[in-house]
């Protein structure tokens, strides 16, 4: 269930974060430490989100096919493969493994 009120709330919060920067520019200077904390928090969330959504489905293990596809994508990303190649590789490896009977 995703009520329209939740969507609107997220939309307003998101626009607020976007608007705050241009509005406050020149009036405030964000301390370098705070800016680094924002960047670090975003990175932690991205990696945690990648890990949980690769490994888990709901409260349990998602099966081997998905993390395997994500692992290959991660290796390609480290080797600086273009972004579309990374994304397509993740889907292709996962799909092929499932075709081969690996869940």
């Amino acid at each position, binding site marked *: *269930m*995703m009520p329209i*009120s*939740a*969507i*609107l*709330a*997220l*939309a307003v*919060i*998101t*626009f607020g*974060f*976007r608007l*705050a*920067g*241009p509005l406050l*520019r020149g009036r405030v200077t964000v301390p370098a430490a705070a*800016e*680094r904390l924002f*960047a*670090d*928090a*975003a*990175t*932690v*969330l*991205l*990696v*945690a*989100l*990648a*890990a*949980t*959504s*690769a*490994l*888990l*489905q*709901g*409260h349990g293990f998602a099966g081997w096919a*998905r993390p395997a*596809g*994500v692992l290959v*994508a*991660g290796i390609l*990303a480290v080797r*600086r493969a*273009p*972004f*579309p190649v*990374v*994304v397509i*590789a*993740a*889907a292709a*490896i996962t*799909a092929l*493994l*499932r075709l081969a009977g690996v869940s």
Partner: protein
Amino acid sequence: MRFLWRTPRVLDARDPRLLRDVGLVCLADSIVGVSFGASSVAGHLAWWVPVALSVLVFAGGAQIAAVGVVLAGGSPFTAVAAGAVLNTRLFPYGLAVADVVEGPWWRRLPGTHVITDESVAFALRQSEPGRRRAAFWTCGASLFVVWNVAVLIGVALGSVVRDTGVFGLDATFPAVMLALALPTLTTRPARVTAGTGAIIAVALTPVLPVGLPLLAALAGLATRWRGRRDPRSGGGTGPAAKLTQVGGEP
């Protein structure tokens, strides 16, 4: 007034490299958009949920996180909280491109709405103001159109094909998150922080309500306290660092 309408050149045909890179990013994000639309509908959400999120929120990571939480049985509140925390990074982004989006309100509003990882990264790669503007608007505007069309296609696809798992689409989301985060993980402290957060989130997922483990992952930031005194520990983060990945630089 004259210079006002001259500066925002949306399409700079003299810069084929910019157009090519924006095209690559749009292609990648369109795959994610199709996947997002398809998996939302396949998970029995109403068709307008992914569509409204894409138009109104227009932040891929937060949208997918929010829908992911809801599809896994979490509450709408947790979904909004997870999306909101992910979007805090838009605040420093807004500071970074404030000069690019300023102008009359009818340009400022859409400009503000298309502040994303990608458009900011493209803007920051240019040093000359006119080119910054062109890069930001070219990427932001194309991405808004491509993303929303892709989500619509995904919604259509998801209502026809019930088992989207066959195409491995569920693997595209973690792959995108990983590809966005990797360029910022250049230092050891950064990797320790992110790794700790990921372990906390994975370990807590079986026991906590869906969405909360993600917020608990922020406890990984505590590993930074000891490294505070080392000025070298925090480098390599932010949208500029992300661009090497997003832009598919050779």
